[in-house]
């Protein structure tokens, strides 16, 4: 277990996620000045920031040799769920301080999708969260009235179910295939 966490750079990423969660929960209402249409509340940047950071833990340096397929998949699934839950917890902290419902759900969805994207592009899946960050910063005016709860309500139950299914498929795909590493024969 410890080797698995270390192999995924898990301690460092975990500390970074917690640090972001704690820092943003303290400064949840601080507005980041953007030249693209006014200031953005810090809590708005939390889901993509956490998802981007979590992408660093999708790949590991643990050799595949010695792992039974089923055990390896279980380990990957557990890892993906653990990181997703951690980002959700950090987002819940921010959401509680910012008074924003559904922030954890959106963050966990984005993190799940990040793990799914990692099947194709490895740590490059950080681009998903980064793209959302850029979109938020660049579309401040368009997103002025948007809140996580509104996004969630706008999806309605078919959309929410679809998001949950896509997220589950993404995490399952990660558990099944892992993320491509820079070297062959790794179990990530």
């Amino acid at each position, binding site marked *: 277990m410890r080797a698995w966490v270390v192999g995924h*750079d898990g301690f460092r990423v975990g500390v970074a996620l917690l640090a972001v969660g704690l820092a943003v929960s303290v400064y949840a209402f601080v507005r980041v000045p953007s030249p693209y249409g006014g200031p953005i509340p810090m809590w708005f940047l939390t889901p993509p*920031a956490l998802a981007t950071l979590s*992408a660093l833990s999708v790949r590991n340096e643990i050799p595949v040799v010695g792992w039974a397929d089923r055990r390896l998949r279980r380990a990957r699934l557990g890892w993906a769920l653990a990181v997703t839950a951690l980002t959700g917890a950090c987002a819940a902290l921010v959401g509680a301080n910012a008074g924003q419902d559904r922030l954890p759900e959106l963050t966990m969805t984005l993190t799940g999708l990040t793990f799914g994207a990692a099947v194709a592009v490895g740590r490059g899946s950080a681009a998903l969260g*980064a793209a959302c960050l*850029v979109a938020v*910063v*660049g579309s401040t005016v368009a997103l002025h009235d948007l809140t996580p709860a509104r996004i969630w309500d706008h999806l309605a139950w078919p959309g929410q179910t679809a998001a949950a299914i896509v997220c589950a498929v993404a995490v399952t795909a990660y558990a099944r295939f892992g993320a491509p590493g820079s070297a062959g024969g790794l179990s990530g």
Partner: protein
Amino acid sequence: MIGRRRWWLLAPFLVVAGYALLANRDWVGGWAGAVDRTTGSTVLTGPVLASIAAGLQLGVTRLRPISETTVRGHAVPYRSAAQAAAIGVVGYGATLAGAVAVTLSVPHGGPAQWWTGFAGVLVLVLAALFGALCAHLLPSPLTVVAAGPTLFLIGAFGPAPLPEALRFGPTGSLVGLQVVASVYLTRFALVVALCVCLGVAMAPWRVYPRRIRLLTAAGAAGVVTAGAAVGVFAAGTGIGDTRLERSAEGPTACAGTAPTVCVAPSERRLLAGVQRAIGRGAEVLRSAGVDLPARYVQQLPYAEAPAGSGEFYLDDREDRSATESVLMLTHPASCPQWSQDTPPFAALDAQQVIAEWAAARHGERPTAFSPEMEKWLPHLDDAATTSWVVRTFDQLRSCDLDRIVLPWDLD
């Protein structure tokens, strides 16, 4: 300098640059706006480039045991920064080309200070150095992810004058305006000083002999002092404020007759729509006997409309209601009272009443903006109201704003 395999790093840069250009299209059509928007795209592409530079530097970190033993091993982080800067400059050139292409695709015009585009190059070089330095000092994948957002947050919250070094735009509408050259050149000097500081910080302090270390430290101190002096001077001269001044651009792109409508060449793409709206409003007012100026010109900052011309505020909407069309005509003269500390409230209300009256004649439903007007609305179609409109418009045209009385306040 850059291997073929690394040019793919241009892709995220170009995606972000394209988004920064096209997320908002209010700059389209004016050369000044095109340059400003391109320069302003570095607020987003700069952080992306910082992360790219950090990634490049991290990639060569594994060779550090070998590279540190070579004569020019200390140049490795500089090389990473240079590679990232090259990617940034190529991407920036492509962004500028994109902005020019978008501008050429619509009716366009206006002056531009093309040299201000150099600010973007400087910001990107600064970002590349910052990213490479971060990964040089903290070689970790976390650094690659954090370098970009950190640079963005420094631009947002950093102590003055750092934000001025990182954020050269987008300024907003530059129609009729230009940047003050001395302010920009001071900011350029500040960015260069910061680049030198970052470059010095990347120097291999431990491997040099004591004398060279002392000399380098003295040099670094000099540079930092110079940079600080530039910063203090910059802060003292107020470069934190966007220093803009009036440009030579005037409302010279005209169309139509009775009235002739003129806009700044940068807004030429909006001319047809404005002319349509003003023509529609003019028809209603003329039919009631209102005497309109022969020419309406766009309001520009720090500029007054020529004597005898009306003026209007221009936004970039395509469609305007009858009320909005008539409202554009209710500045038939450039009066000093409009820019007084206390605005002429009665005149402002009168403009709105005229617009609602015209909208009603155009078949639209008028809207009351006060309880008094709500009570008065049944009298909107009276002949007395028409004569009030003609009289009030004449008062607006002769700048006799103090004598304007709203129709429900008449005896």
